[in-house]
């Protein structure tokens, strides 16, 4: 499995001769989802604490539901993103007359998520650090949550977290290049273009979110 990080070309070359199996990729995505869910849980807890002033005492139990639901949404979102990335890569590779089943593409894209596990753990630690040190204001108007969270989302720690995510996303993208090359039987150059387009959009969007642009 370590070979996918060090020599993804060789890994996928060998893997394409095997039967398509989504078990391990799904497990990888699930792990990422759980890690993301932990981070989302922390953020949901922060939001719930801010909203504590808006709800009556009998509805305070609802606040814990916010954290849990946020975590569940994060897990589900991880699977959705997995499928969305696979669809985009599959669609773009069609331009280069790529061959191969979508299921194979989905499998290889799932393997490419491995570096994101590390970034997910780091992000979760960062979020925990941010949430635990933040002074949380009570908000009586739900519409003000966005304004209240804005400085937090643009805090240096959070920006650092974004930067780490971009780095690991680039690592994943590198793996996806070789994964697509073998999953869709296209040249390395075409695979690079296929991956680079959505990755460039993602990186630009993330930088925009950071408020740098």
């Amino acid at each position, binding site marked *: 499995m370590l070979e996918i*990080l*060090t*020599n*993804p*070309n*060789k890994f996928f070359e060998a893997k394409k001769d095997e039967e398509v199996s989504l078990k391990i990729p799904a497990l990888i995505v699930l792990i990422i989802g759980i890690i993301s869910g932990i981070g989302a849980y922390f953020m949901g807890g922060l939001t719930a604490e801010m909203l504590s002033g808006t709800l009556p005492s009998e509805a305070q139990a609802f606040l814990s539901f916010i954290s849990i639901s946020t975590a569940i949404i994060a897990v589900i979102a991880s699977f959705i993103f997995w499928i969305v990335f696979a669809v985009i890569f599959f669609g773009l590779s069609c331009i280069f007359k790529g061959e191969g089943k979508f299921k194979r593409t989905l499998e290889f894209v799932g393997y490419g998520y491995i*570096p994101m596990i590390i970034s997910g753990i*780091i992000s979760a630690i960062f979020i925990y*650090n*941010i949430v635990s*040190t*933040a*002074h*949380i*204001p*009570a*908000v*009586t*108007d739900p*519409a*003000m949550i966005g*304004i*209240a969270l*804005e*400085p*937090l989302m643009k*805090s*240096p*720690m959070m920006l*650092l977290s974004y*930067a*780490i995510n971009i*780095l*690991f996303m*680039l*690592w994943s993208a*590198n*793996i996806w290049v*070789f994964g697509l090359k073998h999953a869709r039987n296209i040249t*390395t150059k075409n695979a690079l273009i296929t991956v680079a387009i959505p990755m460039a959009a993602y990186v630009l969007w993330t930088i925009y979110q950071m408020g740098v642009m």
Partner: protein
Amino acid sequence: MRKTIPTFIFLFFFVIAVATSGVSAANTASSATEEHKASVMISDCTVNPEAPMCNDIGTVTVTVKNMELYKSVNIKEVQMLSQGIKVLSDSYFNPGSLGPGGDLSLTFTIKATCPDGIYYPKVIVNGEGAQSIRYSFPVTVDSSPLTIAVKDVPEDIFSGERAKIELVVGNPRPNNVTAVKIVTEYKDVMPAEVFIGTLSADDSEVAAFFFTPQESGDYFLNFKLQFKNGDNYHYTDLSVPLTVTESKKSAELILTGIEEESLPGMNVYKITGDINNAGLEAANSVVMKVGDAEGIEAMQPYKAYFVGLLNADDFSSFELNVKVEGNKTQVPLIIEYKDEDGILFSEHEYISVESTQGIASTGELPVPMIAVVIVIAILVIGMISYSWKKR
């Protein structure tokens, strides 16, 4: 002796008859000489303005007409002379020849440098082979200005309420004046200018102004009446003293129950409270806004709050969001409303806010964290490079 008396009588009548015939012959000879001189006359004379004021500049237009039916007349000189009125323009030399029945209009510029009164300038016309004319005409110099006075003004004028002030302009002069207008520069008076136009002799016009004082106290509203007599501008000033007192009925908006909720870190405050109408009249279209000030910025979702109609003894809650930067502790609020006439009123209030601490961490990046990121970046770049070498 009996023959002497009839002879004497005969001689007497003879002498009388001879003398009479001699005079008649002389008269006949004289008439024959004058028949050779053509007849010209001044057929029209117009003074503009009809009645100049002292120091006014005007014009006199005279029309010289040839009364001959078959003979032309060469006009050699037309000049105007006056002792009271100053003639500014020169005489006309050889202005032209007038055909039978023809006429010629000539204009002289005059200046009424004299006191009020009636003056008789002369126009002298010398024509070749024509009788010389000396024509006098009257010019009335009257320096009476237009009058402006207050026709109607409310007994009580209240701050924040509109008061109608009516002024009457009269023309005691013997002639019409033009371009009559009343101007005021006072900012609380609308309109700033009322144009009346031509005002006939012994006529009057009423002009209405609306005065909406914002504060109570003594006021002197200055109006300037401007008019033209001919081409000469004249001015008359009017100062209207007024005493403005506080209104006893108008809407009186006061804020109570003010609470500010801070969102630390963003320095965003949610200001809530009640706005009450403690007056006896309704306040229409009440809008609350965050005032302009350095370091103060209105924020969504409530940059402004529309309260709407606020009847007397009624109240409404409001909410505003504001971002306070720096060390600002006072947030300016503007309350705007309209009275039943649609006049906009504006009140200013200040809300005190307490400075807050930041929401998130101090904003400083821990050095180890930066080091970790650098290490990660090197690791990722290394792994990517390695994977491309191995392929």
